[in-house]
């Protein structure tokens, strides 16, 4: 079933691609076969991550970035992630609200995703959906994360270029010195630059970037935008283009792809190993019960489980 569906998707059928994305999200059994067809064709797109705190204007900016790429003759895929409720699993995916002008454009494919409990700012299937967007021929794939704090930086494993969007009014200079989000930026954007305090954020970011500068390494430029007025978006895309050119030339691109592949293989392997072990150890649940009752500790339980599954040494 899925092999024919992939063929149809690769031939440009939107519904087939959309159904495959659902399968990538919801049908773990189908994923390996789909990805074996998709992955080899997924290398051509420029994947741009857009991340930042809630309310920074990520959706509006993504919308204007998409519009500008369209003006430049490029096709665009958008993968927009919003959080799932930890209590009932439901989600309201509202990123499309800011992208309405793109709805009628066949050159833009927007897919909303719920995070489904995955920490890190993306959904578990985001990476595969991005690959599918690339495989069906989108020149640029924009990945919009959930509104993030400081540690949700999974986007760097997916994106070739990461844009971190900041806004005035979220904190002082010390916030920008903390670890995490700021270290993953290839380009900084101070959005809502017409607001009070924008200059302060701009200067703070510039200072931080300046301190971290190293010879021969990419130093993230800081730009001002007003997404709702379409200000600064052209300049942003020029910087993004400079970044990918630099990354390709310097070997950073290859290095990042290899690091991302390591993490991906690692995650799939863990998943498969766990499933294989659970399959071979029917009494898996019993161990949890006994550890829960503090009959023995979890390390001992794992030792037993490994012995029982034949993986112990």
């Amino acid at each position, binding site marked *: *079933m899925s092999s024919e569906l992939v063929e149809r998707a690769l031939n440009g059928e*939107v*519904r087939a691609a*959309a*159904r495959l*994305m*659902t399968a990538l999200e919801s049908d773990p059994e189908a994923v390996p076969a789909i990805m074996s067809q998709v992955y080899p064709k997924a290398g051509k797109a420029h994947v741009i991550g857009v991340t930042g705190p809630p309310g920074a204007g990520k959706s509006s900016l993504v919308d204007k970035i998409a519009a500008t790429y369209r003006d430049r003759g490029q096709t665009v895929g958008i993968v927009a992630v919003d959080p*799932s*409720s930890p209590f*009932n*699993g*439901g*989600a*309201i*995916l*509202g990123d*499309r*609200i800011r992208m*309405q002008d793109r*709805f*009628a454009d066949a050159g833009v*494919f*927007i*897919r*909303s995703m*719920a995070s489904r409990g995955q920490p890190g700012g993306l959904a578990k299937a985001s990476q595969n959906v991005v690959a599918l967007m690339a495989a069906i021929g989108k020149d640029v794939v924009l990945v919009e994360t959930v509104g993030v704090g400081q540690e949700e930086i999974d986007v760097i494993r997916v994106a070739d270029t990461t844009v971190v969007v900041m806004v005035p009014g979220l904190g002082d200079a010390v916030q920008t010195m903390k670890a995490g989000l700021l270290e993953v930026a290839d380009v900084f954007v101070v959005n809502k630059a017409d607001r009070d305090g924008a200059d302060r954020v701009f200067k703070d970011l510039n200072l931080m970037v300046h301190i971290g500068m190293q010879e021969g390494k990419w130093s993230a430029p800081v730009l001002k935008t007003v997404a709702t007025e379409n200000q600064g978006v052209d300049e942003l895309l020029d910087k993004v283009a400079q970044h990918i050119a630099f990354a390709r030339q310097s070997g950073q691109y290859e290095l990042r792809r290899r690091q991302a592949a390591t993490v991906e293989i690692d995650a799939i392997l863990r998943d498969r190993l766990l499933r294989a072990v659970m399959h071979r150890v029917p009494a898996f649940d019993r161990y949890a019960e006994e550890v829960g009752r503090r009959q023995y500790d979890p390390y001992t339980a794992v030792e037993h489980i490994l012995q029982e599954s034949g993986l112990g040494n």
Partner: protein
Amino acid sequence: MDGHDRGAKVVARLLRDAGFEVIYTGLYQTPEAIVNTALQEDADAVGISVLSAAHKHIFGETARIMREQGLADVILFGGGIIPPNDVLWLEQQGVRKVFLPGASGPEIIDFLKQAVTERRRAAP
């Protein structure tokens, strides 16, 4: 969807709390845009709120374009200020369920849960 979105937002929230993933598109959607969204998002169901008296046009066109695009199996439902006399006509156009003012949250949730379950069971 027209210029009023309180009803739509309340329904979106109700459905979210019932565990649905709701793609909220915002106001003033054309039938073409609604269908394109359903297509790209591989939606199980499309819900439309109309309070502007344009319900015949919006539901009728949406249903027609859905059939044209091969989305006849996607559940189309909605509500708003709709005269009871128009319900039968809307259903004949392919609207699966029309909720009139006063419909309760559980009513909407139950309908959708059942319809989505049936649709998924029927899927190839």
